[in-house]
Structures are given as C-alpha cells and as structure tokens.
C-alpha cells in the first residue's frame, strides 16, 4: 500500500526557505504573496488494511517524520 505524507511548517512559523522562494518568484514576475516550503515523504507499506496503515503512518509522523512543535502533517493513502 502506498501513502503520501505531506509535512508543512505550521502557520505563523517563520519559514526562511519559503521566503527565499517567494522572493525569487516575485523576481520572476509572478504575483505571489506568499510561498511556504514543506516536504513530501512517499511511503510504501507492507500493510494491506487501510486503518492499520493509517495508524502506523500517524505514529511515523509523531515519532519521526514531523516535529509537532513546528510542523503539521497530512496523510493520504493511495487506494489500490
């Protein structure tokens, strides 16, 4: 089973990388008022049960993939 985990800097948290990207986009002439940079983790799981997979993914996020102090996460399971 495949899943995608999206990790984002929480809103209100300074994101210097996003600011640099924002500045570059504006320099290219795009009318952009904000850009924030997060991270995508594609995961291939052995689990076949969606509920089981989601529980495992949540634990992965809490333990390792995201730091809850500064990041939020979003899990998307791919239906097969």
């Amino acid at each position, binding site marked *: 089973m495949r899943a995608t985990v999206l990790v984002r800097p929480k809103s209100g*948290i*300074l994101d*210097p*990388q996003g600011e640099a990207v924002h500045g570059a986009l504006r320099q290219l002439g795009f009318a952009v008022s904000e850009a924030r940079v997060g991270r995508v983790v594609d995961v291939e799981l052995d689990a076949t049960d969606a509920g089981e997979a989601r529980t495992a993914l949540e634990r992965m996020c809490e333990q390792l993939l995201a*730091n809850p*102090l*500064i990041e939020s996460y979003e899990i998307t399971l791919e239906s097969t």
Partner: protein
Amino acid sequence: MNPPRPRVGIIVFPGSNDERDAAWALSALGAEPVLVWHAEPELPDVAAVVLPGGFAYGDYLRCGAIARFAPAMQAVAAFAADGGLVLGICNGFQVLCEARLLPGVLRPNASLRFTCKDAPLRVERRDTPFTMRCHPGQRLVIPVKHGEGSFFADDELMEELEAAHQVVLRYDGENPNGSRNDVAGVVNRDGNVFGLMPHPEHAVDPLLGPSDGALILAALVDSARDRLLAAVG
C-alpha cells in the same frame, strides 16, 4: 594529591566531527574523556555525558531527528532521567531537543546561511552545573558554526522557559541565527541537561583565540567530579 579526573562520556554518532576537540578540551580541563560509539546500548561508568557537534546521521530529515533513536541515546535518556549531567553542543543540542530531553527545536538560520564566527554571549544564570564558574550577566565570547541554530519555541513554551529561567545563555548583540529571545543555550527544568549552539570546546586554549569556553567545560568537569566524590564518599 591531585583531584580525581572524572570520566566524561562523549557520544560519537556517524557524522559527529567535534568529538576529538571535546575530548582534548575535557582532558585539558581535568577530566578523563571516554568516546562512546552510538550503537552502544549502555553507557560506561561516567560522571557526565557530552553530545558533540557535527552532523549525526547526516542530519537527514531534521537535525538530530534520526540520531535520537540511536541505542546510546536511550542510555543517555535514562542517565538524564536519573539526574545525570548531559551537555549537548551544537548538533548535540539539536539531538537533545529532538529527543525531548530539552524543550524547543533548532531551525534553519534566518539568513539560510551557515554562520561561523565568534559570538558574544551573556550568561543569565550561574546556578547550573554548567555555568557556576561564570557570574550572572558575564559576557563570554565563544564561536558558533552552524546552519541550523535558530532556537524556536512557540509563544506558550517560550513564556514558560523564561518564567522558569531556563534560558542560560543569550546572544549579546548580534543574533547570528534569528533564535527567539536571542536564545543561545537552554537548560531543562531539573537543571541537569544543558544544550548550547556555541562551541565551548573550540574556545579553551588562548593560543587559538577566545578561551571562555573553558568556563563552561571546567564547570562541567567540576560538577562531574563533585558527583563522583559524592558517590564515593
């Protein structure tokens, strides 16, 4: 009679690179450094532990995020829970934050640039095992060298840390990384775990530049020796 040399464990992760400077500095200041490989599930008999600078496990994902699961880190967490003295320098500070042994997190520098320079600091407290050789308000100069040293805590946590006087060191003057409230080093609530971004182990021999780092490391050695003597006595 010479005072006993307390053994201080230095955890070496794949990617650590300041462990030898830490060992040299601790040895020069009267301790017996013991390098401990990250895969060791138990600590040798030591009176204090240092997590050195570097890029543990490549600092992939987030600095310290993977290193915190090393077998030696489980032993360090147990040692800290028992009241053991733990000092995290730079990457070691990042590992301690990710391991939740210290509050907050270190984020990329606001400038997005690696910074390497002597940093003026202000000592906020001397009643810790790591700063008792300083006086409150003392100005120290200790080098920083990091790309991700911007201490962050949300409003609530920052308020808690200030109220509990857990900010032990602040940048005095220019803040090199954009850390909140100019935080350069924080201690845990119990006062036995300390993390700082500046590198005291690079500022010990006056021949090489500022030597204020010796004040921090010598305090650690004193504290470790006190514990050793208390355990024996």
